[in-house]
């Protein structure tokens, strides 16, 4: 079997496991902060609705978090099992960043999660709120480190290469590498927006079925404020991120734009749609707007955007994929902005909770944030190819020496297990969503309490859940 086949399989395996994984942390990041806000508002205002929402979302959070942990564990080992050449080459930089993520984030999340989920009657209000905040903080700190590591692979600096391996020289330069601030902002914001749309869709589902209560309304209201304010901010951050990419990875931008060559003296057009053909070195069936490419990417009407043909063929990423993944992301982003604006208009007219067309759109937009996140990551990661560490190590040179048979077996195992288990998990999450927030849920006191000899079991026990569903 050829080397290429094994390399492709290794890439597919990594892409598969990491794509599945990213969905869970994205929701975890958003929901953890949402829960912290809910608990904070409850403590401040003493309004029952916030506490009801907290209980409702913390159950969904628990299922989601569990899946994030187990799928994340796989990632921590896959660098070595599947990309051992990369690990040996770049471990001196990415390893410490990952270690800091574990120390400052994973332990923080895991350490306080138990109290957050099961400790309502074991610790005081203040300490419980503190635990929720620590979990939320952990998710954000985790984002910081993993994106520092990923961004360094995109725009490496602060190192030197000795004996064919990376040696860190300046850690500040490594962590705060050129693409890091943009990528961090873009991803953290994406997680918040994705969660807002997930929460909004849940509320819309209940309202469409006539299950109108203050908690459901509050959910929709909070989600739509997020959509209105944060979705446009995300577009601005995305624009800055794009300019940063143009500066450091111009060929990625050329691939995203399906832009093959510049005509001397003319500004670069923007190709709205088309089918990039890597072999023929052209984009077929294209619909383009003159000069708009230059306007968006150089903020001028005369400067040209770099084109694919200016780079040797072996250094070009696959434009056929990133052209479209980018457009999926941007398209969904524009739709989100539209939903936010529509919600404002309906809010003014007092029909936010009753407009069926709006509620249907909001429902269908539920997974939009997650799809946009996947599309965005496909764009930036496939756009980094053929490099694993940009300009330093090619992906083909970073892979472990496994044969195609081994990789096929494990890939099939991952696909089967992930779809079966995480599919079921998503099913459970949806079932919890369908139950909706219940007034005064979680107020009943389970036996025990701080300093008592009984551990109150899970407030999320199946017995309760099932009962609630039957009723």
């Amino acid at each position, binding site marked *: 079997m050829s080397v290429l086949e094994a390399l492709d399989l290794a890439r597919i395996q990594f892409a598969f496991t990491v794509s599945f994984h990213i969905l869970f942390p994205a929701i975890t990041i958003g929901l953890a902060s949402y829960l912290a806000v809910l608990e904070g508002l409850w403590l401040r205002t003493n309004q029952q609705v916030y506490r009801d929402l907290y209980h409702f979302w913390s159950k969904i959070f628990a299922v989601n978090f569990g899946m994030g942990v187990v799928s994340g564990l796989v990632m921590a080992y896959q660098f070595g099992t599947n990309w051992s050449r990369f690990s040996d080459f770049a471990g001196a930089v990415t390893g410490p960043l*990952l270690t800091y993520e574990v120390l400052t984030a994973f332990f923080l999340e895991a350490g306080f999660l138990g109290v957050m989920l099961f400790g309502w009657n074991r610790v005081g209000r203040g300490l419980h709120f503190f635990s929720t905040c620590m979990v939320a903080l952990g998710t954000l700190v985790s984002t910081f480190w993993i994106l520092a590591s990923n961004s360094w692979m995109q725009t490496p600096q602060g190192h030197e290469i000795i004996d064919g391996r990376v040696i860190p020289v300046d850690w500040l330069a490594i962590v705060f590498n050129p693409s890091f601030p943009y990528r961090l902002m873009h991803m953290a914001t994406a997680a918040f927006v994705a969660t807002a749309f997930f929460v909004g869709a849940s509320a819309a589902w209940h309202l469409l079925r006539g299950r109108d209560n203050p908690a459901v309304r509050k959910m929709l209201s909070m989600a739509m404020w997020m959509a209105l304010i944060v979705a446009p901010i995300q577009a601005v951050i995305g624009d800055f991120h794009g300019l940063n990419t143009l500066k450091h990875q111009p060929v990625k931008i050329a691939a995203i734009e399906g832009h093959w060559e510049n005509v001397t003296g003319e500004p670069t057009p923007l190709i709205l749609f088309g089918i990039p053909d890597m072999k023929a070195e052209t984009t077929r069936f294209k619909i383009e707007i003159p000069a708009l490419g230059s306007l968006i990417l150089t903020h001028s009407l005369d400067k040209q955007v770099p084109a694919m043909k200016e780079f040797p063929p072996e250094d070009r990423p696959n434009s056929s994929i990133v052209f479209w993944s980018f457009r999926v992301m941007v398209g969904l982003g524009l739709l989100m902005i539209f939903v936010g604006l529509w919600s404002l208009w309906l809010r003014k007219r007092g029909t936010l909770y009753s407009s069926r067309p709006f509620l249907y759109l909001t429902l269908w937009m539920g997974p939009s944030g997650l799809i946009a996140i996947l599309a965005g990551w496909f764009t930036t990661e496939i756009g980094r190819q053929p490099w694993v560490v940009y300009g330093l190590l090619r992906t083909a040179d970073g892979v472990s020496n496994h044969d195609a048979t081994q990789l096929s077996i494990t890939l099939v195992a991952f696909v089967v297990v992930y779809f079966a288990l995480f599919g079921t998990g998503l099913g459970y999450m949806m079932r919890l969503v369908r139950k909706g927030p219940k007034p005064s849920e979680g107020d009943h006191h389970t036996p025990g309490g701080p300093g008592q000899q*009984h551990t109150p079991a899970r407030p999320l026990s*199946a017995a309760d859940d099932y009962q609630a569903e039957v009723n």
Partner: protein
Amino acid sequence: MGIDLPLIWAVIIIFGVMMYVVMDGFDLGIGMLFPFVKDARDRDVMMNTVAPVWDGNETWLILGGAALFGAFPLAYAVVLEALYLPLILMLIGLIFRGVAFEFRFKAKPAKRHLWDKAFIWGSLVATFSQGVALGAFIEGIKVVERRYAGGALDWLTPFSLFCGLGLVVAYTLLGCTWLVMKTEGPLQQRMHDVARPLALVLLVVIAVVSLWTPLAYPQIAARWFSMPNLLWFLPVPILVLVTCYGLLRAVARNAHYTPFLLTLALIFLGYSGLGISLWPNIIPPSISIWEAAAPPQSQGFMLVGTLFILPIILGYTFWSYYVFRGKVTHEDGYH
């Protein structure tokens, strides 16, 4: 430079893996004890004894992987590549085990047995493959010019399979004595009954490994049986015997806490024995921690934060255990 960074990092990683073995050891052991307990409500209790903490326990495994990556990238690359299949199997086992914690309580009663099975098999597969990986690691990994030079199935040997079984016994005993400490009534009695045979089997496992490794590997024999090493290390096997004796006595008098603490001691001793056999190699049989070390810029950078953060982690981990201290019973939260 005066500070021996690779040495410090080896100690930190050894400590992290030790924490993992102990803490996830009893979690996984509980999974493997499920078949011995049929009552669904007892199974709820068993799971609830670790529900608030299992996630933190598993994090030590992530730390082990990440710290190895950062401090000894060569070892991370070579060892993980060599142990590809058992490690992937372990990860898949841990996935089944991990989701079972949440899913079991979310499933409809009719489907719950599926997640019981996921919990049992996940724990078993994860533990067994961890043991196999450990065994293969002890046996050594072929490296040529910083690359793994062996085959895809080099890890598959009688010794590694035996280590797989051995670890299953060790974790099951940990889980068993943990439950003795955390439960009461018939379930606790059941665990008391299982503890004795488990402890005896574990003693046999330790004995077999202690004989097998020096017989098969002259290097390990030389480490233990040359003078004056023998005198230095003699306390280890003696303490194993003493601890085992204490454990059996504690089980016999129906003690609640002592069996778990003595099992911890036993695991610690076994772990020390392995450490003595392998030190200072991080890729047995011949690559030492100093040869595989990341540059001091990396190890130093990591150390600054680690020395500061690790005590805090231990602090809130302890606090979390403290919050959930005491016995777990049937009536807790189920009505």
